């Protein structure tokens, strides 16, 4: 009886193990495409199978046949690539947007994988310079989906290894746009990336790791990439620099720039090589940008001189106050409150530097005046603190004299007692 029980036990455990093995085998979807391609010596043919391991589509349960068609369960090459089984093969460059768009433009289908993902990339693409050249002129050197997102090893845009991750975008665009050979015939410069790398935006993204700083697609768009025109450039910059853009729209420069067909922000700040702006840009001195258009005596010349003068005045005042407060602090005086209140003055300075986009000295004055008042208050606090320190030192000297006198008196008293 015991033996019978034991045999049942053995059979049962075999059964369970066999079931488990079968279950795991069926969970792993068979793909004859990958099985064959991964072994091929020609790297052009084996690379897709290797790269696909890290592809976001594979992560979502898709396989080769979901894009290329065919039968991944077939055991022979011919059967797997049978056109009757929907085999499509490698798409031509001209067909790539539609090839990806088959799923990515289908809102119903995409909801199953990522309901928040947009489905207008293909439509947008055909509004871009890339898309138009491809569609209208059959130009196949232009970027298509795979040029930027790569192919077979496609990663999510939030993956730092993705070529379209924020800090990789500029380099990805530069693969074509910085190549003089590749860009020959398109009639556009190829120094954008070199210039961008010198910009304040590149510094923010590469040095400060600030992914919110703009890279190519933030100004040009991504799928609908197009250079912003003269009339729309201010809107593009104004997405982040809203206050400056708003001030510019109300300034006398607006009409003048429109009339002369000048790009609004880029005339002073340039486009790709946007340097960190400085006070030297404004004013009437040598090197100031204002004198590129304005001449001595005109309204703009006067306003530029006034605005720069007021800003310089505030800077000098802030520096003076900061210096004296620093001195008081180093002397051990408690000046954290006036130091904190000095923020009002430094904030006013930042605000004044923004307000110059109104081109109105009166507007700049509206913040410089209270800024100067705050700074003067800070300076006075520094003066008071240093005066207090010198009062303490004098007080100490007087006290020490008194204390020593007292000590001597006690000493004399001891002498008197002990000599008795």
């Amino acid at each position, binding site marked *: 009886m015991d033996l019978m029980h034991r045999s049942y036990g053995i059979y049962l455990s075999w059964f369970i193990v066999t079931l488990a093995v079968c279950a795991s085998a069926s969970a792993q979807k068979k793909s004859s495409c990958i099985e064959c391609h991964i072994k091929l010596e020609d790297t052009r043919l084996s690379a897709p199978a290797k790269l696909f391991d890290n592809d976001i589509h594979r992560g979502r349960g898709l396989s080769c046949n979901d894009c290329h068609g065919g039968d991944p369960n077939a055991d022979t090459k011919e059967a797997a690539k049978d056109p009757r089984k929907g085999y499509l093969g490698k798409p031509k460059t001209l067909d790539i947007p539609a090839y990806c768009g088959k799923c990515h433009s289908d809102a119903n289908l995409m909801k199953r994988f990522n309901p928040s993902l947009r489905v207008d990339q293909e439509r947008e693409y055909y509004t871009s310079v890339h898309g138009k050249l491809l569609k209208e002129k059959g130009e196949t050197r232009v970027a298509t989906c795979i040029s930027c997102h790569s192919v077979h090893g496609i990663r999510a845009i939030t993956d730092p290894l993705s070529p379209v991750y924020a800090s990789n975008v500029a380099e990805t665009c530069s693969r074509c746009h910085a190549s003089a050979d590749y860009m020959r015939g398109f009639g556009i410069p190829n120094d954008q990336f070199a210039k961008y790398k010198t910009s304040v935006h590149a510094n923010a993204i590469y040095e400060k790791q600030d992914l919110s700083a703009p890279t190519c697609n933030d100004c040009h768009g991504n799928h609908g990439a197009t250079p912003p025109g003269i009339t729309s450039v201010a809107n593009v910059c104004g997405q982040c620099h809203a206050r400056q853009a708003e001030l510019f729209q109300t300034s006398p420069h607006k009409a003048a720039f429109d009339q002369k067909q000048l790009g609004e922000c880029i005339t002073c700040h340039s486009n790709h090589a946007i340097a960190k702006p400085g006070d030297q840009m404004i004013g009437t001195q040598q090197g100031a940008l204002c004198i590129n258009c304005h001449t001595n005596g005109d309204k703009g010349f006067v306003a530029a001189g006034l605005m720069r003068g007021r800003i310089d005045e505030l800077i000098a005042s802030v520096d003076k106050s900061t210096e004296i407060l620093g001195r008081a602090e180093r002397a051990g005086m408690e000046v954290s409150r006036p130091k904190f209140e000095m923020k009002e003055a430094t904030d006013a300075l930042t605000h004044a530097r923004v307000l110059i986009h109104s081109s109105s000295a009166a507007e700049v004055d509206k913040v410089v005046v209270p800024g100067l008042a705050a700074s003067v208050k800070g300076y006075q606090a520094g003066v008071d603190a240093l005066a207090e320190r010198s009062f303490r030192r004098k007080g*100490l000297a007087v006290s020490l004299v008194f204390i020593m006198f007292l*000590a001597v008196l006690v000493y004399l008293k001891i002498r008197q007692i002990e000599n008795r």
Partner: protein
Amino acid sequence: MRIDAITAWLDERLSISTLTGMARKKEVPLHRHSIWYYFGGMTLFLFVVQVVTGILLLLYYRPSSENAFESVQFIITEVKFGWLIRSVHSWSANLLIATLFIHMFSVFFLRAYYKPREITWISGVLLLFIAIGFGFSGYLLPWNKLAFFATKVGTEIAGVIPIIGRPALRFLRGGDDVTGATLTRFFGFHVAVLPATATVLIAIHVLLVQQHGMSVPPSLAGKPVKKMKFVPNFLLRDLIGWILAIGVLAALAALFPWELGEKADAFAPAPAGIKPEWYFLFMFQTLKWIPPKIWKFDGEVIGIMAFNVIALLLFIVPFVDRPPGNQRKRLVFNTIGVVAMLYIVVMTIVGYVT
């Protein structure tokens, strides 16, 4: 005539003459180690300075995480001579710990804990721990960044002790983290629990010193020792020391006002190179250097336990080293004392410069 009558009236009721008689009778031995007798009195004087300045600070200090920093800021910027009171309180606290250590080591080396002064020694050791408790709790009260993180680290160290560590940490912090609850708790310790305990212990300590008189080092036992009257001769000398201490405190407060720093922010990252007060530095440095694993045990736990054991050993010193003692025992104890002193000094310096 009238004063005599009042004195007689009071004496009849308070037995003042017994006390004055005791004081008049008290004598201080004069020898080459007499200088060390001044440090007990100096520590007591600094304690009085702490009480007086502490009470003055209490007039304006507000013990909550919302108000503490601002109230100290108010004291040192707006209150007339508030800066002086606050700086003297902080400087005096540090000098007090220093004189306390000097006093303890001098008593140790001069064997002043020999029979019948064992309880005087024990009360002194208790006072040392209370002074350190004063320092630790008072450090947090201005609620600045450094104090906040130092308290975090300090209470974490307490939390490492096996079994009682975790409850002790929660008791000290008033929760799992250093918060406003910790501040109110520390304030309670600093102005109520510790002063009350210290006052009782100081009373016992001083009374015992009066009762047993000043100890003469055993090395001078049997030799003729000159004596000086405590009142007024020695007391007046004490007085000169105290007057000079006021001068030193005033100079430190005026020339090196105690910093307030930035307000504590629980969400801010801990400032780099955070260090405790200097009198904890030698322990802190030891814990930094101790290997993470000693045999099967956590190195840090071993280090903390070792300091606790040493602290407990301090209490039993008078029972292990008893008179008359012999040459060998004296050598062993002197060596322990010198090594401990050198260890504290060297590790404090190392902790300070690294």
